[in-house]
């Protein structure tokens, strides 16, 4: 079903809210990963506020769609989306990474309502998604499994073990995103461990592949709509993104992978996210 312009604009506004929440909670915690959270924000927003069938009042509803943040360090974006969807109070976001809190430094399925599987050490989320997709098919549920992968974690061999398995079992209820911000912790992906030609790799593993601008809400929603119609194979959406997207001084800066803003940086970031679109930047691919 085509997605209306009204919906796209709603999602764009919602993504800005999520970005503010991310900056706020990482500032409050003085710890966390802003860069990869901001790059995945538009994808996560589209899923949680348009596509996913979940019930915040019954997080364990067996027929719900599943979400896996395989790049678990970006959990501020997930926590913000869950709180905005009503899984837990928005006020709780500032307890990120604090002792006795429910919002662990990396997602914990036993502590946080709405987290379907713990993640955080890289390379495992797609495999867990294969297991969920198999289980849901066994039960005859029409539920989907969405997995957000980092680009750096594609260095892990287990990702490709999972890719093989997903194709073998023809998991058309599994949709993966690559949050391709092109930066990993030690530098550019192309320097640390080149992953190109990335789309060819997924094609070679018998996946349906898409390549989009991961900050264009229109492209995100239209592509997910298309992927939902694919039968007989899993889909991957390679989403070109910008690490730190939305906060000009965080964009494309490795340094903002895992550090918290100080007071002055926090105020600048919040002002940028309040006042309209951030400075338009050329996308690096």
């Amino acid at each position, binding site marked *: 079903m085509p997605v209306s312009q009204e919906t796209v604009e709603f999602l764009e506004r919602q993504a800005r809210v999520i970005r503010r929440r991310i900056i706020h909670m990482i500032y409050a915690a003085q710890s966390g990963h802003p860069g990869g959270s901001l790059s995945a924000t538009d994808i996560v927003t589209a899923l949680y506020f348009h596509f996913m069938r979940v019930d915040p009042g019954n997080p364990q509803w067996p027929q719900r769609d599943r979400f896996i943040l395989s790049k678990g360090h970006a959990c501020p974006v997930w926590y913000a989306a869950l709180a905005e969807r009503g899984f837990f109070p928005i006020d709780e976001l500032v307890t990120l990474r604090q002792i006795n809190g429910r919002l662990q430094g990396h997602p914990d399925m036993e502590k946080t309502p709405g987290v379907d599987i713990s993640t955080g050490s890289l390379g495992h989320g797609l495999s867990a998604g294969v*297991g969920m997709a198999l289980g849901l098919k066994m039960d005859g549920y029409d539920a989907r499994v969405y997995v957000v992968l980092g680009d750096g974690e594609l260095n892990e061999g287990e990702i490709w073990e999972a890719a093989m398995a997903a194709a073998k079992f023809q998991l058309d209820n599994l949709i993966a995103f690559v949050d391709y911000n092109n930066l990993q912790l030690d530098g550019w992906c192309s320097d640390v461990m080149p992953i190109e030609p990335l789309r060819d790799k997924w094609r070679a593993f018998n996946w349906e592949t898409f390549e989009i601008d991961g900050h264009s809400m229109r492209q995100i929603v239209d592509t997910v709509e298309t992927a939902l119609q694919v039968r007989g194979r899993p889909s991957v959406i390679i989403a070109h993104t910008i690490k730190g997207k939305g906060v000009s001084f965080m964009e494309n800066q490795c340094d903002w992978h895992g550090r918290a803003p100080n007071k002055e940086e926090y105020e600048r970031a919040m002002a940028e996210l309040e006042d309209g679109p951030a400075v338009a930047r050329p996308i690096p691919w």
Partner: protein
Amino acid sequence: MEWKESIPTRYAYGEELVALGYELPNLVVLEADISKSTQTYRFAKAFPERFFQMGVAESNMMMVAAGLATTGKIPFASTYAVFGTMRACEQVRTFIAHTHLNVKIACSHGGVTPGNDGVTHQATEDLGIMRTIPRMTVIVPADYHATRKLVRAAAYHMGPVYLRFTRDPVPVIYSAEEEFVIGKGKLLRSGDDVSLIAIGDMVAIALEAHEQLAGQGIRAEVIDIHTLKPIDRELIVRTARKTRRVVTLEDHQIHGGLGSAVAEVLGEECPTPMRRIGLRDTFAESGEYRLLLRKYGMDAAAVITAVMELMQ
């Protein structure tokens, strides 16, 4: 000592899985391309729609098992013990144990029982690794019948369980009627002079040593600790108080496994002179299972030497 019958415990695993498959519609089995070896092929034949062949990719297999468990399935993930506990160790620790998912890591080729295969296939550190992981239950059945019963108990136990089976045949020491409870060790022989506390295939060795010691007038108590974790503290303390001498027997390094676990219990509750039988900080090699036990000081003769040291 002559044993009437010896059977690899992995056979019992394969057979019990099929029986459980009829009872538990949500039981699923994952396999890493060694189903004839782990014996899961039996389940695959009976329940093809619940058998997932994952290929030679154990890390992925453990995480797929975790994902299946989140949808209410009871996954048994099978491979060799070296791969299940070492290659996929982080997956098991962080995403099965920490998450307390209902996955059973059911592994063949424990200890030096894949004798001829050599070190790559002999898991001799697995128990120590699994025992340090919080929330993990660790079970090593001693024989065919114990395996049938304990695999069944594991299937009905909520939470992660590590099960270790033998590749090579090991003596049948129990009857089919014997009952087992996870966490409750079994007193197999009573005696006052020394306690032989054993696990897995080494329980038969303890029984052999018991018989030989009896011939020398030494009455040994023999205990089967089939559940390494949670360990039966009460039984261990009771036997140590009675005999004041303890020898542990494990087909594993003497570090980290049963010997360490018993020493921890006794150190806290009843300090007792001990000897530990097992691999002494060394890897084994290829060779016939019984010959390896002899060469590496894990046979009945080695147990008797240890007992004599304690008796002096």
